[in-house]
Every structure is written in structure tokens, then in C-alpha cells.
């Protein structure tokens, strides 16, 4: 989709685009000196490319694609640990489908499955729980992956398992939280961000206050957005208006779904079952303090890291990125996906080398699928 006429409401889209253009002009944003707006959420990245918003919008507005794609920031060491768990004969390893093709050092989960490991794609952690009930002689491990949108689901599932006293269900917890990597990006002296489009469905769980530090401590605007094209355009306009007016606030464009204080049941379940890890590794960003969650001692019987002595504390952590893979630089906005030497050559959605090419929410996969000629023309040298 590249033409505004194909939108649900073309007139509204045209009106927003012209107001964005006027505001960008008022700020003095140009192609040579653009305003940099990071959309944090991978779902927004996907929508921006799907609807061609990066082409339709004023040339002085540049989208920087944020770290909000859990599959994309999953480090190879964690994939390796998934494979080790899956290869145990007593284990049924259950996972969201998105994680199947993420490359590890040795292999991906889909390769492990092809070689005989019992790996099953499920829709919900509740499916994994049901598998544990039906297979009392097997160990069912659920790969808990995702930001605050999926964290309540595994927390509530662990609580249900505890209520039932299930002894053969564990979660390999890789839940991560949105705010810490944003702080890391804002602390990076090379980063040139002027504002943020905040995640919609994550914020439905956590509310808007966890972003207060972005406006208060760093003086940057953030607007929580829905993911219809009109939501995104409206949110970009709100960010630009804040910049024009010299304001830095947390605004909520998606108030029809996102309550200011989030979802109380979800937040209580997360707080009950999980606690922050001292640090957690992000692909491309490295270890980030208090950015990942682990299962509290009260629920340790349901922690796959404890039960199978794997993961943090069980051995050396550092695993280098694959040769030539520039996921880290793409993730921090230093280069565009097409500037990676492996883009479209050694790394494609069919045979991904780096994680950003795996998920449809990854910047590289989005460029590959929708980028076309303009993406190729945007090749630029690293900023450093």
C-alpha cells in the first residue's frame, strides 16, 4: 500500500499529512536536517512500512526503528539455551511460532525440531499448561518471550499451575521491559532522537507513567499510539507539535485502549510472579540493567532455569554476533538495514543471519519486504 487513497479514510490521512508537513516546515526540518522520531514498537515499524508512511510523510521526518521486537533483541545465547532444553528427551518444548527461526550459535529451534527434538508451537502459554496436564510423564517447558504484552499471560499461567500443583510445567523466562533500553538509547551520545512514538498494546498493560522519565529527565516528547495508519500519523503530528512548541510531555493518542494506569490485574500478576534481574542481555544492545524479569523464589518450582540448571548464573554468557551482522548498529539507529553488508545477500527472511530479519516486526525484514527502491537509495554511511 503506497497511496493515501487506499487508506480507510483518505481525506483524514491527507489532512494529517499536510498538517505534519506544515509543522515540520515550522520546525525547519528538511531532508538534510531531519527530525528523528523513533517508533519503539515493532508492530508500528511493520505498519509504517506496510502503509508506506515513511514515503508519504514530509521528507524532513525520519523514522528510527526501535528495539520493540522481542524476537529481534533475543540474544543468541538464549536461543542456544532453548535448544539445549528442547534436546532433552524428557522435555516438550513449547514456544510462540515467532521464535522458531531465530538463529542460535548451533541451530534454531526449527532445526532442532527437524532433528527430532519435541518442539511444539503454541498460541498461548495456556496451551502449554494443558500439554503438561495431558502429559504427566513429560516435562513441559514454555518459552516465555515478549514485553509487557505477553508477561501477564505467563505470570497468570504460572499462578494457575501453582494452584493445580502441577509438577511438570516450567517457564524459561525471557520477558523484558520497554523502558530500560529507551534510557540506554537516550544516554547514547551518538543518538540523535527528537521524540518517540510509544507502544500501544504494551501501554495497555503498563499505562503511560513508565514513560514519564523520557519527558522529565531527557526533555523528549513521547506519544503512545495505536497502530492504524491514522493513529500513527496523528501521533507523529502530536510529537512534532510538542517539538514546535518546545514542550516535552507524555501524551496518549490511543486512550480508547490505553488507560493511564494500565491494567491493574495484569500489573499485580507480574509483580507477584516476577522480579527484575540485575541485568539482561539484548541482541545489539548488550547487557542492560534491570531490563529483564526472572521468576520469584516463591514460584521457583516453575522456573526452567532453576529446574534444569541453565541460563544466568550457570556459565559464561558472552556469545559474539555472527560475522558481518550489523544488527546492533541498525538497532541503535546508526545505520539503515540496507547499509548492512549482509542485507539481502547472506541474510534474508528465508535464511536469516541476524534477528532483525526474522520477524515481520524487525526493521530488516520490513525493509526487505516493503523497502524497494527508496530503501536502496537511502544507503548511508555509519554516523560514527
Amino acid at each position, binding site marked *: 500500500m503506497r497511496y493515501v487513497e487506499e487508506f480507510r479514510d483518505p481525506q483524514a490521512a491527507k489532512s494529517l499529512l499536510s498538517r505534519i508537513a506544515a509543522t515540520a516546515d515550522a520546525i525547519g526540518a528538511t531532508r538534510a536536517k531531519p527530525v528523528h522520531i523513533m517508533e519503539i514498537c515493532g508492530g508500528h515499524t511493520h505498519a509504517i512500512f506496510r502503509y508506506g508512511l515513511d514515503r508519504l510523510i514530509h521528507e524532513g521526518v525520519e523514522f528510527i526503528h526501535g528495539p520493540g521486537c522481542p524476537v529481534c533483541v533475543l540474544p543468541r545465547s538464549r536461543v542456544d539455551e532453548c535448544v539445549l532444553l528442547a534436546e532433552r528427551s524428557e522435555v516438550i518444548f513449547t514456544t510462540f511460532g515467532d521464535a522458531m527461526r531465530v538463529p542460535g550459535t548451533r541451530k534454531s529451534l526449527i532445526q532442532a525440531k527437524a532433528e527430532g527434538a519435541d518442539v511444539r508451537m*503454541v498460541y498461548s502459554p495456556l496451551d502449554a499448561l494443558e*500439554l503438561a496436564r495431558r502429559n504427566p510423564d513429560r516435562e513441559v517447558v514454555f518459552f516465555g518471550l515478549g514485553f509487557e504484552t505477553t508477561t501477564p499471560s505467563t505470570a497468570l499461567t504460572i499462578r494457575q499451575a501453582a494452584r493445580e500443583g502441577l509438577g511438570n510445567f516450567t517457564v524459561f523466562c525471557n520477558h523484558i521491559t520497554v523502558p530500560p533500553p529507551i534510557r540506554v538509547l537516550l544516554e547514547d551520545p551518538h543518538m540523535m532522537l527528537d521524540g518517540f512514538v510509544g507502544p500501544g*498494546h504494551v501501554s495497555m498493560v503498563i499505562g503511560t507513567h513508565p514513560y514519564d522519565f523520557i519527558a522529565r529527565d531527557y526533555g523528549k516528547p513521547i506519544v503512545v499510539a495505536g497502530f492504524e495508519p491514522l493513529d500513527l500519523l496523528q501521533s507523529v503530528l502530536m510529537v512534532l507539535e510538542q517539538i514546535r512548541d518546545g514542550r516535552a510531555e507524555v501524551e496518549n493518542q490511543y486512550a480508547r485502549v490505553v488507560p493511564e494506569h494500565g491494567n491493574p490485574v495484569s500489573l499485580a500478576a507480574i509483580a507477584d510472579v516476577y522480579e527484575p534481574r540485575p541485568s539482561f542481555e539484548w541482541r545489539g544492545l548488550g547487557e542492560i540493567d534491570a531490563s529483564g524479569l526472572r521468576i520469584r523464589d516463591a514460584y521457583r518450582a516453575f522456573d526452567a532455569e532453576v529446574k534444569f540448571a541453565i541460563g544466568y548464573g550457570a556459565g559464561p554468557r558472552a556469545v559474539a554476533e555472527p560475522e558481518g551482522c550489523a544488527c546492533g548498529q541498525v538497532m541503535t539507529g546508526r545505520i539503515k538495514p540496507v547499509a548492512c553488508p549482509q542485507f539481502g545477500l547472506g541474510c534474508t527472511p528465508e535464511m536469516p543471519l541476524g534477528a532483525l530479519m526474522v520477524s515481520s516486526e524487525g526493521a530488516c525484514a520490513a525493509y526487505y519486504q516493503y523497502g524497494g527502491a527508496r530503501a536502496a537509495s537511502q544507503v548511508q554511511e555509519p554516523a560514527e
Partner: protein
Amino acid sequence: MCLGIPGQIVGIVDEDRQMAMAEVSGVRREVSVVCVADGPLETLIGTWVLIHVGFAMSRIDEDEAARTLEALRELGEAQEALEAMAAGAAALEGRA
């Protein structure tokens, strides 16, 4: 996985475990309603909700549900979610 999909609550499965039946694009699937329930579950019947990996996370109105579903279809995410639900059902039968 990160985007919720709209569904309509069409029945109650287990009051004690807070499980309900939802219809998502014509596909029926058990979902947990613990995050959106306030009172007897029957009151949820007919309500539209945003469902994340088997959990209803937010009540939405019908218009919002229709627009969200349209956007998800255009992104290919609706099909992905429905395929994942089918995969989940298959996994329980040991077929996946």
C-alpha cells in the same frame, strides 16, 4: 505475538478458572478473562475484547474491534494469529 486481536465473548467455560469462549474471525477459542472481569462472567457475554496470546486484556467497543481487525488483516497479523491458534490446537493433539 505483540499485537492483540479482537474477539467477542460468546460463552463461559469455567467460572472458577475465569475461562470464557471467544469468537475471533469465526474461530472459537478458550480465553482467560481474568484481566477484564469485574463481577459475574455472564455480564461479559457479547463484549468485544482485545486478546493477547489467549488472554483478554482490554474491553473495546464494536467499532474499535472492526477497525483493529481490518488493520491486523492488512498487516497479515490476523492470519498469523489464527494460524497460531490452529497450531496451538494441533500441539495439544501432538500433531505439531
